[in-house]
């Protein structure tokens, strides 16, 4: 463990994609070298094309970059992409194609997993819109006011847990979490609108994104408390 041994993740997670750039890496087919346009399956030779490093999760699933997503559309898009790329539908294909389908369907699964959860989606969305690396595992940093509030809540929950049991503690925690989650959801539409506006108010948009980011951080702290209560029960 001394000489070798690997230390805990101190580094931010590698960004799998370069945000903002929605252009596909491939413009010609790797197999027949014909023009691909925007297609992930070559229109001439029907070979699947690798997603480039720069593809974002929205474009991988063929969805608009928005915070509000119709879950039915999301699932439909996911299934459609899975039909195209899943290795089980490419069993007899060449090695190169199998490699591509493995990598692509892994990304399709990751994209779906991220966008399906509204909080993970919002987190990813902020990084994407701001052109910053998505860092799913970074340690959250909270303003000291919020931190104090959470510390106090934690103490309160601990005493509730020991005197009245996990259900009471969960109820109390929910009373704090629910309004935050509501605020988060409410801001989704507002931000989508701001982004779609013909004349963008950049300052207002960046304020809204910062507020959303702050609420997400706070919620993820509370989520950890919730997990602890559930584990205790």
């Amino acid at each position: 463990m001394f000489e070798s041994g690997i230390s805990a993740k101190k580094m931010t997670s590698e960004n799998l994609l370069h945000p903002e750039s929605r252009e596909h890496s491939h413009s010609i087919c790797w197999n027949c070298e014909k023009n691909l346009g925007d297609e992930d399956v070559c229109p001439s030779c029907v070979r699947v094309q690798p997603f480039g490093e720069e593809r974002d999760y929205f474009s991988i699933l063929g969805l608009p970059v928005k915070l509000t997503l119709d879950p039915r559309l999301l699932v439909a898009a996911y299934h459609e992409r899975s039909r195209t790329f899943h290795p089980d539908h490419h069993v007899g294909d060449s090695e190169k194609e199998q490699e591509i389908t493995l990598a692509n369907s892994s990304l399709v699964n990751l994209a779906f997993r991220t966008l399906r959860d509204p909080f993970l989606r919002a987190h990813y969305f902020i990084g994407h819109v701001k052109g910053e690396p998505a860092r799913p595992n970074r340690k959250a940093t909270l303003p000291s006011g919020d931190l104090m509030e959470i510390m106090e809540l934690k103490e309160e929950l601990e005493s509730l847990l020991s005197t009245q049991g996990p259900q009471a503690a969960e109820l109390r925690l929910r009373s704090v979490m629910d309004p935050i989650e509501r605020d988060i959801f409410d801001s989704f539409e507002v931000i989508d609108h701001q982004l779609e506006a013909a004349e963008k108010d950049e300052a207002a948009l960046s304020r809204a994104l910062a507020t959303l980011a702050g609420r997400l951080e706070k919620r993820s702290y509370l989520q950890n408390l919730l997990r602890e209560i559930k584990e205790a029960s």
Partner: protein
Amino acid sequence: MNRTVVGIDLGTTHSLVAYRREDGRVEVLPDREGRLLLPSVVALSRDGVRVGWNARERVNDPETTVIYAAKRLMGRSFEETESERRHLTYPIIDRNGSPAVPDPFRNRFLTPPEIGALVLRELRSRAEEALSCEVTEAVITVPAYFNDAQRQATKDAGSLAGLNVLRIINEPTAAALAYGLGSGKDGLFAIFDLGGGTFDFSLLDIRKGIFEVRATSGDTHLGGEDFDRAIVTEWLGESPKLSSLAERSEVRDLLRKEAERAKIALSSRTEVEVAIPAAGFRTSLTRDRMNALVEPFVERALSCVRSALADSGTPPSGADGVILVGGSTRFLRFKEAVASFFGKPLFDSVDPDLVVAEGAAVQADILSGRRKDLLLLDVTPLSLGIETIGGVTSTLIPRNTTIPAQAKELFTTYVDGQTNVDIHVLQGEREMAQDNRSLARFTLSGIPPLPAGTPRIEVTFQIDANGILEVTAREQTTGKMSNVVIHPSYGLGKEDVRTLLKEAFSHAQEDFATRLLVDAKTEAQTVINATIRALERVGSDILPDADREAISRQVEALKKAMEGTDGRKVRDETRLLDNLTQPLAERLMNQSISNALSGMALPKEGGSHA
């Protein structure tokens, strides 16, 4: 491309083969006599090796070794099978740490995959006859709780039978596939598979031909046998006499069977009378009382369900239907509990004997490449990660992640100038590395000596559609790379399989004397084992000390003969021992004890997926 891929349910008691026809119909393929099931039984005798029904007929033939329930030995070490071996009446020996069954007639040993291969070979030829074409590819089902080694051993069995196993799928998933396809309904389904000793739960979303496993969970030590045990414990508390008798395992067996019978009877009645005259025990059990006894186990099953629902973010009311498979789901209290938890009707009309093979046939059809209308999206059942400083697990791919899946994360060094890192790959949900299962260890060396925390080491986990994990570590400045493909810790190596394939079933004529000796020794060992087991179980009330001594002396005499090379002598001493123990068997108090001595009885438990 036109490939014929069949689906196979390689069960503990029965096996089946199914095929999905061009028109979409799924059919379980019968043998020439029209029978769908094939007993998972292999009989070894002087005149040949029999499989299936013909093998089962030989159960009481003393000249034949009848191998059954070999699935319980599959992919496990000799040590791990200790509790299983106690219930199996054929000889099982320790061969390089793995269990093996001696075939005295051909002077060889059969490993569990080889036994499985004999059954698979039979199914394969059945399929070839029914479909009138060569069959070389298959999908085989295994219980969801099977670990990598058990899955690999099942695959090996396929290879030995000349089958390329395209995929191993879980039995509850297969059942759900068949059910979902058969019902023609879309929706979110909860699937319960409660066997004798294990419980599996899956949540499956079916939409327009896509079968998405949303979450799985389970308990490898929870099943119908726990219900029976709870009832037995209750009876033991009622009668001190019974409880002293129950120190003997055959009395326990008897009680367990009575408990099972009472449990089944209470599905249609509210009260049953139970009497064990031999023990002077008489009691009655009400349905309410029994329900109270089994409640902790029902609650444990439901807590697995809650965790799977939570993982997938689904409330119980979100399920559109509940599917029950596995023998123990017939238990009334369990059904009631499940129905009230989901508030949904239960589907238990599917034929549990056929449904698993049918589901395997559906996946086989998908993998044949003929059809792109269906797709199964499966998940990885346990979290995967690596060990970090302090022995802490860092998860890269959480459980219930849809596969294929890839995850990348950056790590760094801990000590200044560190040039190697150890990557320890783990599987499990526990915080500390030592509590999780170790899958592999490898080292990435050649890292440039830098201050601690400076190097960037990217670790990538890639799971393919078969669930095989590949881990790669790459130092980013130098591009130095190291990787490992996770192989199971047991099972056969590729080379072993090839060698076995060459050797398989083509043994040269062996010298007669050697064969006689091996034959006699094997039989002798069986009789010795049965005798020792019986001696341990009976007290002086049944077996007078003088008789016990005579038997022990003969055991020693036989052991001595076994050290020599005279096959005939071994056989004669065996017969003497057999004669000596005969009166003992007659004196034994109840039928269950004599069963233990005479050996060759098939277990009566039902269900092919136990």
